[in-house]
């Protein structure tokens, strides 16, 4: 996690470099022994409100969820007796859970690559300093600020098989119309297209900031050595963007794995076998099937999936860091 966080600073100016601060950025009291008890109290006065909320709304649910996952607790309050790992073994042999995980992983794959590449291309183009900076930023970033309800409504309309723009465009170029959200296997791709449109602006801004932090000195030195524009792109720009690309990849994959809002709303709650993500299955098991114990077990399987991806990326990032 620290690697991820350290990488984030690559996206912006490094405040840790400010003068007048010890190595840990923490100030120790000069009269340490005497002041320490009062110091502890003061520290906890600062920390208290947050820690209460943190314990109540993160740590406790995290622990209680494990307990729930070992019971047959229902939403209505019935049940609640301890059933051991029953929910887990049921989940692991539940084909719907596996297709939901498969859908989620597939969605993550087909969104992450375009969301990184498109953002990079957008940022490189905007960073050339072409006129109309505010317009480019507005166009690419504005969708990111819209609620999932709004983007879902817009894209359901675009993907409407009879009157939607997507099919109008297809027929204009002489292609067969597609029932975007009503066709198995195509539905998740349609949701991915809407998601890419919606969220690419965030990555774009991170790339843009990183690009503007590359010292111009490097380009000048390279030019003196006779490097052309393409050579500079691949020898300076792309390598310099390494850390921020790592951060974007981590954030992006974790965000895509959490897919729910737009999938649920674009499918209008009626999930299809090929578009139901794992978070929606948690929701369905808990709030439609009233099985809180079972839904908790799926939550933890989902959490483990996120952890695996997170740890894998940390290892990859650390190795890359170590080699450079």
């Amino acid at each position, binding site marked *: 996690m620290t690697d991820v966080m350290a990488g984030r600073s690559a996206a912006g100016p490094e405040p840790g470099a400010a003068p007048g601060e010890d190595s840990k950025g923490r100030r120790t009291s000069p009269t340490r022994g005497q002041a320490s008890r009062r110091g502890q109290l003061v520290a906890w006065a600062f*920390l208290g409100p947050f820690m209460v909320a943190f314990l109540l709304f993160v740590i406790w649910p995290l622990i209680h*969820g494990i307990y729930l996952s070992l019971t047959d607790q229902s939403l209505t309050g019935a049940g609640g007796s301890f059933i051991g790992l029953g929910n887990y073994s049921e989940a692991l042999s539940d084909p719907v859970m596996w297709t939901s995980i498969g859908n989620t992983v597939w969605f993550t794959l087909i969104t992450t690559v375009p969301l990184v590449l498109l953002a990079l291309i957008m940022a490189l183009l905007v960073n050339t300093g072409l006129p109309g900076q505010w317009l480019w930023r507005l166009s690419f970033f504005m969708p990111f600020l819209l609620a999932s309800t709004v983007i879902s409504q817009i894209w359901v309309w675009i993907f409407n098989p009879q009157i939607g723009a997507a099919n109008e465009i297809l027929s204009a170029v002489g292609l067969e119309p597609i029932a975007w959200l009503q066709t198995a296997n195509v539905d998740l791709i349609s949701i991915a297209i809407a998601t890419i449109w919606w969220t690419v602006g965030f990555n774009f801004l991170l790339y843009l900031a990183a690009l503007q932090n590359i010292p111009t000195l490097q380009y000048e030195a390279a030019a003196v050595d006779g490097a052309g524009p393409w050579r500079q792109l691949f020898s300076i720009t792309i390598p310099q963007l390494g850390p921020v690309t790592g951060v974007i990849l981590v954030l992006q994959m974790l965000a895509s794995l959490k897919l729910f809002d737009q999938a649920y709303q674009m499918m209008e709650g009626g999930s299809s076998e090929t578009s139901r993500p794992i978070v929606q299955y948690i929701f369905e098991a808990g709030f439609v099937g009233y099985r809180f114990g079972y839904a908790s077990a799926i939550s933890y399987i989902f959490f483990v999936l996120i952890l695996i991806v997170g740890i894998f990326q940390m290892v990859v990032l650390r190795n890359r860091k170590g080699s450079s």
Partner: protein
Amino acid sequence: MSSTATATRTDDPQVDVAPVDVTKVRRTNRMPGEKPLGPARILAFLALALMALLWLLPMLWAIVTSFKTETDAASGGLELIGPNGITTQAYEAILAEGNVYVWALNSLWTSAVITLITVSISALAAYAFSRLDFKGSRWIFLAVIASIIVPPQALIIPLYYQMLTFNMVDTYWGLILPQIVMAPIIFILKKFFDAVPVELEDAARVDGAGRLRVFFSVVLPLSRPILGAVSIFVFIQAWNNFLWPFLIINDTTLMTLPVGLQTVLSAYGVQYSQVMAQAVLAALPLVIVFLFYQRQIVKGVATTGFGGQ
């Protein structure tokens, strides 16, 4: 496409290595040595314009459709103005649905309260992690940062159960409280406080000010820009949050805008112009916020990397 992006002019005296404010990037801050005009530059411009158009069109189209008559909207077509001209019928119909105002108001004040609480408790805690010496500070900080990896979506079941036992299902507090813990904000603010020179605080402390006094009269005023950036982000997250409000609120009068609009969507399911008018209305507050605070928002994303759906 980006051949000009990295072109260099050796005689450019300006070596800019200071942190760059993305929001201020204008033509004056273009990469050194780019040619004012050339085939590559024109190509880059065309590519950019095409992409911008692709990204703007869905929004423009939603706006255009919301001003069409229902017949025109339902017959499809890509034309900007339908055969029956422009009408505000869709908006009138939506606004006649009295709950829209209630939902907007709910969204506004609950998002404001979430922002206020989140930023306050996070700033206090971040200051403790940054400056105060206490037992286990390192480990507690690590635990807070590690919690970033916990997806809120994985906690909905135990959180909902907790709200059931607290009797907070279908209440504003049930909606607000689980949204006030945002570990990334602690991290961002701690980094900022770390960079504030200790000398500034020492001066005040020599004058006899206590920690709390120093925090409120020295540190907080210095932190206004970062607190602003962070607040805008918390507000946007809260305003747009769907899953938790959707789960915890069933009472129509307590709903937030995204959830309320989602519930009536089926009622308007075939009324295309009304659906688009809804989308426009729901987006409007944030568009206004963005136009006013564009610099802070862009800077907030760029410097903190905070956000993410």
